[in-house]
């Protein structure tokens, strides 16, 4: 009975989303209902996290079909931490949408689609079956196609064509990889896969299949194959950008962590080296992109790319400390990227342009906005006591212990580039001559800063509360590093 709760982070958004279809014309009511739904989802996942911490991995066999025959949801600390964070971030983004977006957007199925998106995201985190992961990916992607094109501007449609085609290709690759894997080992249940791959040893054939998976998930995560990302993340309405930047790449990252720590971890000299090289190139490319644009939204989008590279450095090193650092950093990045996008969106609404040249001296008129941006910048650069710090420290020290000095140098340099790119924004847009006089300035819409301030509070809280988070995160890292814990929890009963 108890473990039926496990399906709710996916089920609740779907049901509420469907109900909202019947309330299409009531924009504000939809917003409030979806906010309540996400708050509920967040509290359920908080409760689940507590349960996992006390009793170990929880699983739910759909329809009572035991693994490896049925499909199941598995909650380990890693998955539930991400579900919790993404639910909270979604709730905050929804409250921003409630305050800031136009009525047209609100009544064009915006809220149901966001809820379907989060259902796909949460489902991807929780599923224990590789084919089910594909299905949840598709739920998420279909919603993201809709969200990307909602708003109907020419630029959005152009970017959407690229985004949809690249994702259809990668989904097809995903299916092919699944077919190969099923042909090779005869199962798609993750724990069963891990068990069988360990039994037969990771043969060259299986390693090749794993590299196909690596390509698929890298496309979704924006690891090296991020060419589609800056365009499509910088064209939709800002709330959508914030959701995409905070959540979508994280799902790809999660899949990489899950697959390469649970199933294909026997040949790290091949797979993890490739991941390391890809992460390094992503860091370089993302850093260069972040400092080379004058468009605020492009800068933010390239900051997403840098973070992806940084998180995957942890997987490439793959020591417990590095994995722990990555988990901290994923959580931090969800919060901080949502904050960055929302702040930039507010700046663009206020000044009517997304170019840096069109803004100056915003600090005088909107000091609160300015200091929020300042904190977001420090947090992304990894300055203590904010949330980005602990992840950077753990990954860096793990890189030193492991002798991966190139990765260490690149990840630290990338932090400087992130700091520089945002400092440039801060200097140009907030300092300098105030173009708009006090009388002519656009008033901030009432309450528009509240979601941003909540996120600022969260990033400070995560930074200061690292101590109280550490049991959960180290538990998550332990499960990732020792696949046998996961396998025993799933297959233990029948063996």
């Amino acid at each position: 009975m108890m473990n039926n709760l496990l399906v709710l982070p996916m089920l609740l958004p779907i049901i509420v989303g469907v109900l909202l279809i019947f309330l299409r014309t009531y924009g504000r009511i939809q917003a409030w209902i979806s906010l309540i739904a996400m708050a509920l989802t967040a509290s359920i996942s908080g409760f689940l996290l507590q349960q996992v911490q006390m009793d170990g991995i929880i699983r739910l066999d759909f329809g009572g079909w035991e693994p490896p025959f049925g499909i199941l949801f598995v909650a380990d600390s890693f998955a539930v931490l991400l579900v919790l964070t993404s639910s909270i971030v979604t709730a905050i983004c929804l409250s921003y949408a409630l305050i800031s977006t136009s009525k047209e957007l609100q009544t064009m199925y915006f809220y149901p689609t966001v809820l379907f998106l989060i259902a796909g995201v949460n489902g991807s985190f929780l599923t224990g079956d590789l084919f089910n992961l594909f299905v949840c990916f598709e739920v998420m992607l279909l919603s993201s196609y809709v969200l990307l094109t909602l708003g109907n501007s020419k630029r959005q449609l152009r970017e959407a064509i690229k985004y949809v085609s690249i994702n259809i290709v990668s989904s097809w690759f995903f299916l092919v990889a699944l077919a190969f894997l099923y042909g090779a080992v005869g199962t798609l249940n993750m724990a069963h896969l891990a068990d069988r791959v360990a039994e037969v040893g990771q043969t060259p054939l299986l390693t090749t299949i794993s590299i196909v998976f690596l390509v698929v998930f890298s496309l979704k995560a924006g690891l090296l194959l991020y060419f589609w990302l800056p365009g499509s993340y910088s064209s939709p309405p800002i709330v959508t950008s914030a959701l995409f930047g905070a959540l979508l790449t994280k799902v790809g990252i999660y899949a990489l962590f899950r697959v390469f720590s649970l199933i294909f971890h026997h040949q790290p000299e091949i797979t993890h080296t490739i991941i390391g090289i890809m992460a390094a190139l992503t860091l370089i490319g993302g850093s260069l992109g972040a400092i080379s644009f004058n468009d605020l939204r492009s800068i933010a989008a390239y900051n997403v790319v840098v973070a992806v590279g940084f998180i995957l450095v942890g997987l490439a090193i793959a020591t417990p400390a590095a994995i722990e650092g990555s988990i901290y950093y994923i959580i931090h990045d969800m919060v901080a990227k949502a904050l960055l996008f929302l702040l930039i969106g507010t700046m663009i609404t206020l000044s009517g342009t997304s170019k840096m040249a069109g803004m100056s001296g915003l600090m005088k008129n909107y000091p609160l906005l300015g200091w929020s941006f300042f904190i977001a910048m420090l947090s992304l650069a990894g300055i203590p006591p904010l949330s980005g710090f602990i992840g950077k420290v753990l990954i860096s020290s793990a890189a030193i212990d492991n002798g991966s000095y190139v990765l260490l140098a690149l990840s630290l340099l990338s932090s400087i580039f992130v700091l520089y790119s945002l400092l440039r924004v801060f200097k140009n847009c907030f300092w300098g001559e105030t173009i708009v006089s006090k009388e002519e300035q656009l008033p901030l819409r009432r309450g528009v800063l509240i979601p941003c301030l909540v996120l600022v509070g969260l990033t400070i809280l995560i930074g200061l509360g690292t101590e109280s988070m550490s049991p959960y995160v180290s538990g998550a890292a332990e499960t990732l590093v020792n696949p046998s814990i996961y396998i025993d929890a799933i297959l233990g009963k029948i063996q």
Partner: protein
Amino acid sequence: MNINDVILKTVSKAVVLIILTFGIYLFFSGHNHPGGGFIGGLVIASAFVLMFLSYDSETVSEALPIDFKKLSGLGVLLAMSSGIAPMFLGGAFLSQSFGYFDLPIFGKTELATVTIFEAGIALTVIGVVVNIILSISEDE
């Protein structure tokens, strides 16, 4: 331009009936044989699409006052409800059960909760397919 579509209209009147019957047959046969909610739904949707093709959309909408967007939502709700109900009865999400009942006329009949789930899927498929076709054809 006014093409003479008497033949199309007359034939589709008869064919729609056959397709609908076949769709419902497929839906029920899916329990133990090839078929099921998805395929049955597709076939039924094709009957609707044929109606929209041979008659204009106003005539059909008048005869069939259904909002297909809401129909698909209703389908999802129905399918989900058959998954959620067992959660309140102590089973796992999506648990199904079945039993044999003596019904008048039909005699001994197997009734399974999975049919509710399949009905939801069929409604969703009908709603989505017809909605897609209508949205494309409404292009101005």
